């Protein structure tokens, strides 16, 4: 392994190093602030390490990883999201009795897994990254271990992770049996050389892999776990699951399909379109029935993954651009929405997740309430917010490939979605003085600052998305050139 290789994987090295330092720090001196600072510093260094790495891109490091600009962009997104989650968690954990230090360690390891996923170009690294991510998530979900709900959620996630891994492995095995390779790029070459028509092995393998990934993405019909896990997990962890875990999986899925030319084959587009439409409709409809904000956000996340799948099918340069922009938008608004729950719950014994508890929030805490309303409007895709540009991309991608059923589903889903987002906004803006809930405890400073930054990004990227689109177009070209 040469120096160039090492520079290319510098973000991994820094992240791994940080994890080890944090372990040692916890072993020698258990101090919440120190651990948080170290972890934060490590993640910021990881972000910085992307610059030297990008000079080496694109580069294959061992057969397992490819460090191209696409991977580095997604790593940047993942690191930034992790930093936001860490900052939100700090105040949240400080107010709780549990020993908070290992939480940071788990977040670091999970981030490492997610970063490995977006850079993997091989089934082995795919699986390694996935398991690193999943197993750390188990610990994170069950972190408040003297409560019942997180434990239940964690067990659910454990079973799910096991099953989806089994599907994945079986799918990989089938493809290996047919083609004799685990490398994404080789798969494409072998397919074109061997036979124009992919056979049953290949298709079954692909379907099984899509099933495994579908579980992780919680798209319908593999979505059952999401609301329970979101509800049970601590709010910052739910944000992590929703953004980092799903985002990394989606980035990987995109790379696999683009590199291995998988999306044009036979029934594959139809399969994805069906899943997309089902996710949009089921996610939005079930969200209507919820009174728990975390569950509403879980179902809304299912619907958003459906919108992403619509963009996924578009193909061409627009595909990567649309998905990447949407994922960034989704990250900002989802971390933001869960962030509101996190900072509000910081001083409370149990998490404030009941819709009624938010009544009149905007009058008591105007900035917080306003930020929450902005996040929800962004999730609904209203202009001035980043979600609007995201929705524009999704619709443009759907229209471009003339998938009218998916576009109609997207429109219908957005209208249904608007209804439950408005329900929350109605609660936030309730004017009846009897409804007012007393919000105990101050808002943690780190959390408040993070939310302010997220809200500014939400509006900034909604009003002037040009720089981000430019960045995405520069990075998207890397994978599209294959």
């Amino acid at each position, binding site marked *: 392994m040469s120096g160039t290789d090492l520079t290319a994987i510098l973000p991994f090295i820094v992240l791994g190093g940080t994890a080890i330092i944090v372990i040692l720090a916890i072993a020698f001196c258990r101090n919440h602030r120190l651990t948080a600072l170290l972890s934060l510093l490590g993640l910021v260094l990881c972000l910085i390490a992307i610059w030297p790495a990008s000079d080496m891109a694109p580069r294959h490091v061992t057969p397992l990883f490819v460090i191209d600009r696409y991977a580095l962009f997604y790593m940047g997104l993942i690191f930034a999201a992790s930093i936001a989650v860490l900052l939100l968690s700090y105040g949240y954990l400080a107010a709780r009795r549990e020993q908070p230090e290992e939480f940071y360690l788990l977040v670091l390891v999970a981030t490492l897994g997610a970063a490995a996923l977006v850079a993997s170009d091989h089934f082995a690294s795919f699986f390694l990254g996935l398991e690193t991510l999943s197993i750390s998530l188990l610990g994170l979900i069950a972190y408040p271990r003297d409560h019942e709900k997180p434990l239940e959620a964690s067990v659910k996630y454990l079973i799910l992770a096991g099953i989806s891994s089994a599907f994945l492995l079986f799918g990989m095995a089938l493809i290996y049996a047919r083609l004799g390779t685990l490398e994404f790029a080789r798969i494409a070459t072998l397919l074109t050389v061997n036979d124009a028509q992919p056979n049953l092995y290949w298709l079954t393998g692909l379907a099984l892999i899509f099933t495994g990934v579908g579980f992780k993405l919680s798209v319908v019909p593999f979505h059952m776990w999401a609301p329970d896990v979101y509800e049970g997990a601590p709010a910052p962890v739910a944000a992590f699951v929703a953004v980092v875990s799903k985002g990394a999986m989606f980035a990987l899925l995109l790379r696999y399909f683009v590199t291995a030319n998988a999306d044009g084959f036979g029934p594959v587009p139809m399969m994805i379109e069906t899943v997309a439409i089902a996710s949009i409709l089921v996610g939005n409809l079930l969200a209507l029935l919820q009174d728990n904000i975390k569950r509403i956000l879980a179902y809304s996340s299912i619907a958003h993954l459906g919108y992403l799948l619509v963009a996924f099918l578009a193909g061409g340069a627009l595909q990567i651009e649309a998905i990447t922009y949407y994922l960034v938008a989704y990250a900002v608004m989802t971390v933001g929405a869960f962030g509101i729950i996190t900072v509000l719950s910081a001083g409370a014994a149990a998490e404030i997740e009941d819709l009624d508890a938010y009544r009149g929030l905007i009058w008591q805490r105007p900035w917080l309430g306003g930020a929450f309303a902005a996040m929800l409007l962004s999730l609904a895709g209203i202009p001035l917010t980043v979600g609007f540009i995201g929705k524009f991309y999704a619709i443009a991608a759907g229209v*471009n490939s003339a998938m009218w059923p998916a576009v109609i589903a997207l429109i219908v889903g957005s209208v249904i979605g608007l*209804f439950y987002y408005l329900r929350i906004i*109605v609660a936030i803006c309730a*004017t009846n003085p009897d409804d007012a809930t007393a919000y105990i405890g101050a808002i943690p400073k780190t959390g408040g600052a993070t939310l302010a930054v997220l809200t500014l990004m939400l509006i900034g990227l909604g009003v*002037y998305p040009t720089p981000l689109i430019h960045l995405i177009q520069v990075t998207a070209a890397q994978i599209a050139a294959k």
Partner: protein
Amino acid sequence: MNLLWLILTPLIGGVLAGFTGRRNTALPRWLSLACLAIDLGLVLVLWVTHDSTTVAANGTWLAQMDWPWIPQLGIRLHLGLDGLSLLLILLTLGLGVVSVIASWSEITERVGFFHFNLMLTLTGVIGVFLALDLFLFFFFWELMLVPMYFLIAVWGHERRIYAAIKFFLFTQGSGLLMFAAIVALALINYRQTGTLTFDYFALAQAQLGPTTQMWLMLGFFIAFAVKLPVVPFHTWLADAHTEAPTAGSVILAGLLLKTGAYGLLRFAVPLFPAASATFAPVAMTLGVIGILYGAMLAFAQDDMKRLVAYTSISHLGFVLLGIYAGNTLALQGAVVQMLAHGLSTGALFILVGALQERLHTRDMRQLGGLWSSAPRIGAIGLFFAIASLGLPGLGNFVGEFLVLLGTYRVASGFAIAGTLGLVVSTVYALSFVQRVFHGEQQTSKTVVDFSWRHMLVMATMIIALVWLGCYPQPAFDTASSALANLQRVASERLSRPGEP
């Protein structure tokens, strides 16, 4: 002058009002008024400095600005002001001032946030009237919804939440259909020319097959029809107008409905002329249904505000009829009708709002005989009621008459059926006056008459309406080159080889 200032001025005013509202309740009102006055001044300067001769030389556009916004997607900050936009922006700012004054005593809580939303809605409306980039147009189209939603949901009456959500869902759902049509149009143009653009003038050149054109036109039409509202899509209107606070009702009826008509005039017809021509009989039928059905519904109401709300459906039916009749007379009539309806219905909503503020009811069964205790309100109510029924000499008459005249030339049946609407409107307008102001006084409360502030507003609106009725020529002159341009764009497309 930079057109962006027309949009930014109310926006800045709204933000300032929002920030100052926590400490002071009078300051947001004065700030909003000041910003609207400045904006009004800017528009008047534009109007006065461009007389009709220079306009013709300038190609109908009084002013344009074209800045890049999202260059990668071909989205530009392209604004343009022609006579049509100018008249509607004047109406917007006028009604904006009126709304601020009308809510002076009605809104006492969260004044800053109220004016923030009010000014933001006006910003969106002005943006809609100026945008010449379809993406930008949709941006403003959606932008005006959110603050309007808050206006209804926070300061509205009893069933405000229901009304606000219904309003938002109807407009948002139909808006997304239009958005899909906009994106499809841009992508079709992209495949033909190789440049991705949302520019109005560029997209007007796209070659469309008859089926595609019809589908895209329907996408636009439904969005505008919901806003207008056209009869099968009208159910949100009565709830939203009734539950909104007075200023909200004035803006909804006076301005938001006009954005639908404007959209049809500016986009749906010129961009898809062949499909619009095919569709015209359907649209005109819907227009006539709206005229008659809206008037009948209005007559059947006991709630004053609902009555006024349903008259909007009837009046906007004339606008729809005029737009799809398509000749100059009918289009001129539609524009005057839009202006006159904004004034007369806005005034009626203020009047009804003032009565509700005093009597805490809108139910006409509990009212009556108010003339004796509040003669000013009574007289003004009578004036606007007969303006609403289309008395000659007032603006509504000019609008309705021209629309019917223009329609008669292309489709006499529709014109004859539409005329019946004038009869029904007499019934509801006079019964409104009778039930509220005459007869036995039901309530023992003494009704405080209009204050000088209200009288000032009402006097201005009366003068404007009389002016529009007796001497509408300035309005015609201002709008004529813009309307001629829209007709020209449409006819050029129709006569181009390769068009269906």
